[in-house]
């Protein structure tokens, strides 16, 4: 039964990994603006030609 102790330790480690991922995402500003990307994704599809042509 004491194998459970090991499993608990593993599960905690994994959970801490997710917590760190969450903190990283907040820190890098991913949750700063949640609505604009929803609009932005609609734009990128169509005008591939004129976007790439003029930029560089």
């Amino acid at each position, binding site marked *: 039964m004491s194998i459970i*102790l090991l499993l608990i330790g593993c599960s905690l480690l994994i959970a801490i990994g997710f917590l760190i991922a969450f903190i990283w995402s907040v820190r890098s500003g991913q949750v700063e603006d949640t609505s604009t990307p929803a609009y932005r994704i609609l*734009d990128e599809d169509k005008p591939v030609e004129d976007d790439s042509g003029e930029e560089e």
Partner: protein
Amino acid sequence: MKQVKESNVCFHCGDPCGSDALMYQEHSFCCEGCKTVYQLLDENSMCRYYDLDENAGLKMDHPLAEGKYAFLDNPELSASLFRFKKPEKAMVQFFIPGMHCASCIWLIERLYKFLPGVLESRVNFDRKEVAIQFNPEEVSIRQVVEKLSALGYEPALITGNEEKKEYKSLLYRLGVAGFCTGNIMLFSFPEYLGMDPSSQETFSPVFQWLNLSLSIPVVFFSAQPFFAKAWKGLKYHDLNIDFPLALGIATLFIRSLLEVSMHWGQGFFDSLSALVFFLLIGRWLQDRAYEAMSFDRNFRSYFPMAVEVLSNDEEASQYRAIGELKVSERIRVRNQELIPADAILESGAAQIDYSFVNGESEIESAQIGDVIHAGGRQVGSSIILQVMRPVSESYLSALWNQQDKKEGSESIRSFSDWVGRYFTIALVFIALATLFYWLRIDTYKAFHAFTAVLIVACPCVLVVAAPFAFGNAMRWLAKKGIFLKSPDTVERVARVNEVVFDKTGTLTKQSASLEEIFNELNREEQAWIGGLCAHSSHPVSRMLHRYLGLESQVKTENYKEFPGKGIEAKWGENVWRVGSAHWILDGIKDEKESGVCVSVNGVLKARYRIDWHFRDDLDGLFANWDLPRYLYSGDRDTSRSELLRWFPEDHLHFRVSPEEKLKALRMDRERGQYPMMVGDGLNDAGALKEAWLGVSVTEDVHAFTPACDVIMVGKSISELPGFVRFCKNTLKTVKFSFLFSLVYNSIWMSFAVRGELQPLFAALLMPISSVTVFALNTIGIRYFARKERFQ
């Protein structure tokens, strides 16, 4: 891009063009400004803008004044706008009030196509902000601002307000609390479900110590704001709503700590961390609601940031921030610029449009030596003024500063705060009484009962219930085009007991119609006048042009436009004028002066009245509404007879200045009334602030952001009675759920006081009460919203 649209609608902004549409590349445009933006987009092959969202464009009826942003070339003045500035890269952030759809985002984020040197522009749609990175060696901040304005997205330049950042720490706290709560719950299951005695002995201590260590970050990191705020309240001798929470959290933690270390039991770690987690979720939702609704911008954002100050010899001039403007300095104000401070006219033809301040549609002319008030907008050529009073003491600022009063001494103590405070006092008293009673009998039981009382009666539901219910109500109202400034506004609305209306723009529509008073023109002359009016872009000229609807073949000669007065042209030997009565009749005052006149060689030939139409659904609005209502209008009493249908005779007041409105509202307040002011926009700003509740009626919720408590879409005005009823019912629902949880809590408290409540049982009771209260609120509010047909 080749999409066929309704031909009579402006291709850019979607407004109806009438018969006088400007044609360009098979598209019709309502005005020169809209056409220009289209041309600009077309040249840069950016016309996809029009595909993303219908009627994406913003109406460009106020052409950008030349040199309006010249002051941005002065590094001292523009410095405050930069987020950071290095030689090769700089970043600025603007608030763009006009941003409203996917097309706007698409266009603004492609600013680099219009302006080489712009590296990146990123839009935050919720805040209507854009962060622009550019190379200051290639392009100046002035060019960036001017290009944005030319596209129709004129930014509001606001300097030095650095808030936020706090939401990030809230998210960290929320994340940690969520992590710990989930794990603690897992480790608590075995205790709840039971284990066989042998494994109980091995595992119980492990789980308990794990829970204890996981709860430490919850209490000391996640719950820290509650402790901080409670402590702050205590320092000012005020039991705020965070105090009972902090007390509850502290009690739960200390008791659990003792239970585990003394081997009394398993503690309350799951309840404790779940409580903190849900509290933080509530707070986060509340913050997000506030952010979406934060439409209250400082009035200074409507003012210019800098003015052109002339030196004594009039040769040199420099731009200076308006805050640094000194008395007796001389300033130049150009076409379409706002007068920043009360000043005396020194030279130039002053045509001041005061609609910003008092809502009057007419343009006033001023003589040299006259005082011109801050907030007026110069129309026409530039004028030179001598500053009379500093900006902060001007009439408009004085009006605006009324707001401080309402927020400060007079503010209501919110209902939930009130309950929270008395409930806490009662709770602490009962808990202490229990403690002292049992101390004489059984020390262990005394402590046990004391904490049980605090836990079972934890007022967390009371704290969260009201904001939750009000936030819910806000969502329903938003569906109907009614936007509240904050959840607490619901409480304010519920207490309203009289209504004050403004007329123009509130009860009337924003557009007007023309009516003939007398007309001695023959058909040919009418046609010629109609053609003459087509030359001018003034709204009244265009209205007259549409009204006459004819086009003459006879050419106009010597066409001249007098800003703020009218237009003049020659037909053969005769000089014709079309313009304001004041100008045509050469200053003879009479009662119907808001009309437009036509004269030939100084002889009056025709006259038209301009009528502002009432909204369609006013009968529905006033039909069954029993609140006393008043009307305060800045206009003349031309529509008195119509208004008598809805208002008692002695409740109608005309020609009321903004200050008088404000005084009237203040008197009502002093009589103990709770007046709701329904007005439009900035010219009623003072009154909206002074009223118990300021409701601003507007056609475009996003474009106009005055200071008030509620913003309402014009067509929803007939919902006003339903809106007040709904808020009253919401408050009733909240009160009922409070009563419910009070009764529920007192029942269990009676057990707790007697020391008969098992810890496990107490931990289960708490969430049940919370869930019931939330359900009660949700269902109740949904029921009342359905009843008012807020669908």
